[in-house]
């Protein structure tokens, strides 16, 4: 099986100090994944701005790239969401903000809303950089979910294209699943056995998914699977931070309602504190 996950990459263009880095990152990705690039600026068309963007693209080496620049006025969130649909963008690149004085990253409100509502995959970058930072280690979720198969395949596709050396598939075992309350030595032994069994089961499941990955994508990559115990959706970010992964690939959330924001789970936790670059597959 050979598939091409992404065809068109979109990136928002705002005239901030990160402009060049954002354009370079998106352009580089478009070259690696052999995609078209759509640059979206929210605002009136302006020759001056267009010139600046094109200048950056040229300094990157725009000849390798098939790109369009769109100037669309209106509410940023709505404009970008419509642009995604109209231009059949299937991967949107968004930049994160860094907390003052800390090496902590979070998403601004616009990027957050786009992430929640967009119909395409989203790549959140914490450190857009003009120079290429190699992507060596990718962490991907191995949740028991119908979307996981697609997510893992996408991770391998991206890993192959970006020449990553290692992919770790993380299965999150929720405490509730162990279902044995540890009170004394006896229940402790029971829960240890149940936990080991769950880990085996998860490992088997992931192995099955991994077998379906085309060999071209996986032959140069070291694959590891790791079971972790924590909170679903949150702890995988924590893990990615510990192993200093370069990219975290995750399922898109099933739905995000008002309640999810009040009682955050899954993806909302990750948006609150980005552990590394995050790719959300839809």
């Amino acid at each position, binding site marked *: 099986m050979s598939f091409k996950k992404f065809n068109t990459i979109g990136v928002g263009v705002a005239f901030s100090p990160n402009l060049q880095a954002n354009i370079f990152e998106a352009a580089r990705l478009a070259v690696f994944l052999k995609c078209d690039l759509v640059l979206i600026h929210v605002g009136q068309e302006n020759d001056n701005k267009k010139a600046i963007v094109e200048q950056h693209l040229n300094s990157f080496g725009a000849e390798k790239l098939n790109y369009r620049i769109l100037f669309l006025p209106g509410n940023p969130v709505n404009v970008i969401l419509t642009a995604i649909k109209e231009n059949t963008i299937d991967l949107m690149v968004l930049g994160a903000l*860094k907390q003052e004085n800390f090496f902590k990253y979070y998403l601004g409100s616009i990027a957050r809303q786009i992430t929640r509502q967009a119909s395409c995959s989203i790549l959140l970058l914490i450190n857009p950089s003009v120079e290429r930072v*190699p992507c*060596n280690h990718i962490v991907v979720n191995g949740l028991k979910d119908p979307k996981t198969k697609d997510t893992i395949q996408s991770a391998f596709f991206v890993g192959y294209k970006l020449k990553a*050396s*290692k992919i770790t598939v993380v299965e999150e075992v929720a405490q509730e699943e162990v279902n044995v309350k540890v*009170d*004394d030595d006896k229940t402790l032994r029971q829960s240890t056995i149940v936990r080991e069994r769950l880990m085996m089961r998860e490992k088997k499941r992931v192995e099955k998914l991994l077998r379906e990955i085309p060999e071209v994508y996986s032959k140069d990559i070291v694959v590891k699977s790791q*079971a972790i115990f924590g909170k679903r959706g949150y*702890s995988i970010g924590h893990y990615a931070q510990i192993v*200093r992964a370069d990219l975290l690939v995750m399922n898109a959330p099933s739905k995000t309602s008002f309640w999810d924001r009040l009682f955050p789970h899954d993806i909302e936790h990750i948006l609150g504190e980005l552990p590394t670059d995050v790719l959300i597959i839809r």
Partner: protein
Amino acid sequence: MKQKNTIGETIASIPRNLFSGLVVSLIALPLSLGLAMACDAPPIAGVITSIVGGIVVAICGGSFVTISGPGKGLVGVVLVAVSTLGLNATFAAIISSGILLLILGYLRLGKLADYFPSSAIQGVLAAIGLIILGKQFHIMMGHKIERDNALEYLVAIPETIVHVLNVQDPGLVNASIAGVLSLLLMIFYSKIRNKYLQLVPAPMWIVIGSIGFSYYCELILKIPNPISEQYMMPSIPGLTEVVNDLPSPDFGLIGRVEFWSSVVALTLIASIESLLSIKAIDKLDPKKRRSNVNKDIKALGLATALSGFFGGLNVVTVIAPSSVNISNGGTNRFGNLFHAFFLTVFILLFNTELARIPLSALMAILVYTGYKLAAPKMLKRLFLIGKEQLIIFLSTLLVTLQVGLISGITAGLLATFLIHVVVNKSIVLFLKNLVKPNVLMYKEDSGNYFISVKHFCSFLNFNKLKDKLSVIPEQKDVIIDFTMCAFVDHSVMENLNDYQELFHKKGGTLEVIGLELLDANSGHPFALRRLLPLSNLINSGATKRENDLQDLGESFNLTFNNNKSVKNNELEKFIFFKTKKIDYTYNRLVNSDGSVSVFDISFSEGEFIAKEVIRSTMMYINTSSDIPEFALTKEGLLERLYALAGQKDINIPEFDDFSDRFYLIGDNPKKIRAFFTEKIVRFFESNPYYHVESNGSGLLVFSKERVAGVKEIKQMLDFGLRLQTQISKS
């Protein structure tokens, strides 16, 4: 550990538990009588508590060697309940609190006590100690007085001493002499090493002594007891009278706030005291069993409800008798059952004799208990840990004495939280991250459990860490990493220390890493720690890991130095560090000739915003002989570690397995093949995996991109030292 005892084993254990139960009942009898009287309840109430508690908890409980009975912590609360509600309504409150405890047990809220900062709990316990001491001191001195609150009783102590020195009535003088003598016995008992004296616990000596003295006066001197009648124990009813005169618990006040505040206070302090005792006793258990806390709470709740019905007090796990039980060979719950049995026997046979005990002598036991609970040593210890702990302790203590227990605990909680906010100069850290699942656990490939904690870890969210810790078998090796944590408080440090002891006792290890980056205000290992805005070069207060490394160094004949050093020229020659910047090395262990050193290292990859700081533990070996330059690593890791391309894996002929498992690169394949003799190859094959790089004159050895635990450092040292000899031989 085998859980299931065969019936034979159980029967074989009966005699020793019978004996330990007897010894425990000897200490429990005077304590039960005294505590009940200190609560202004009839003395028999204490004994009823012990009997009911012993039977019920022995049958339904979840712990193994604990003894249950009336707790000293409850004195302050019951005293308030009796004075505001009256005795019968107090029994109703005790029954209600038993039911509440039972519900808590079913809801698995036994861990409630985890949410209280340890300095605040110490403060409450010290306050209760002072309440007991303050009130009973006057009775011990033969000078009964009435005051409004606990503080005033304490203030009146000098007044009582002056009064006693001037008193003329010989009955009162004798009462105070009996009290002071008993107190002296309590204080010096443990210091006198005499096997006959130590046969019977000190409180029982007081009971035996005073009964003996009373008979001596009556039968030989033929004079009435010289101690004033009003300072003698009131008569103790026999068992038949107890059963006939069951109190009628008065639930009339059930709609009142005072009633429920008593119930809540009783439940709170009963669960805290029991949990602390169970935790302490589990550490002493010779069979290293883990108590089922929730089951025990349920049993204590049931026992409390029954005890209140029979006219007894709250049943809690009592620490002093429990430790006596262990030291006298108690191994299972029969000890608790037999203690109840012997108490019943004592009351059946000797209830009239007990009235021969002078009150002042009995109260001396309580004064001593109260003093122990108030533990002035605690002040010094808390001062060493940090002045902020002292503030928390004292504010809890004073509010408890002046207002009451619930207010005291609340004050302690608030004080702790405020201090944490002030110390961190941030409330956002706590508010934003309070509900986040900040603890991650996974099993590393080596079989270790690794736990990483993010943001902050304090009494507010310690339960999350505890949940993870409690599911790890104590025979395993655990590493807790606080590198991503900005703040760790004293309660957590103290609790982790308990866990460390527990793991150590059961054959596992629990190591804490990442604390070196956090600054402490004092040199005590339990001090709270917070992240400094800049990584500083001055570090105050050694962490436990640093102390352990020091010890490790001594046993390996290495010198330990925890200063940060920025000069690391020999390391910069390694290819590994070509693309990385070494910030500093610290926690260095160096051998006598300087040829082997193990150190923590902080280095950074990338620059500016892409910069990432990494901390790891590495070893440097200076090889005397000239060796080829090479890097040996696991298949596939190479590109990640070295930003190199175009280097080919060098295969060593004849050793296919080795070539498959390891990735070997270097500029001079011929020289490298010559260096990897059979001995060296076998050495690498048969030892745990480490990444090894040679720069021609030295070796760099490391395994993980995180700071290693002490046990891992030991393994690494062992590996490195043997590798050094192996190389120098070839």
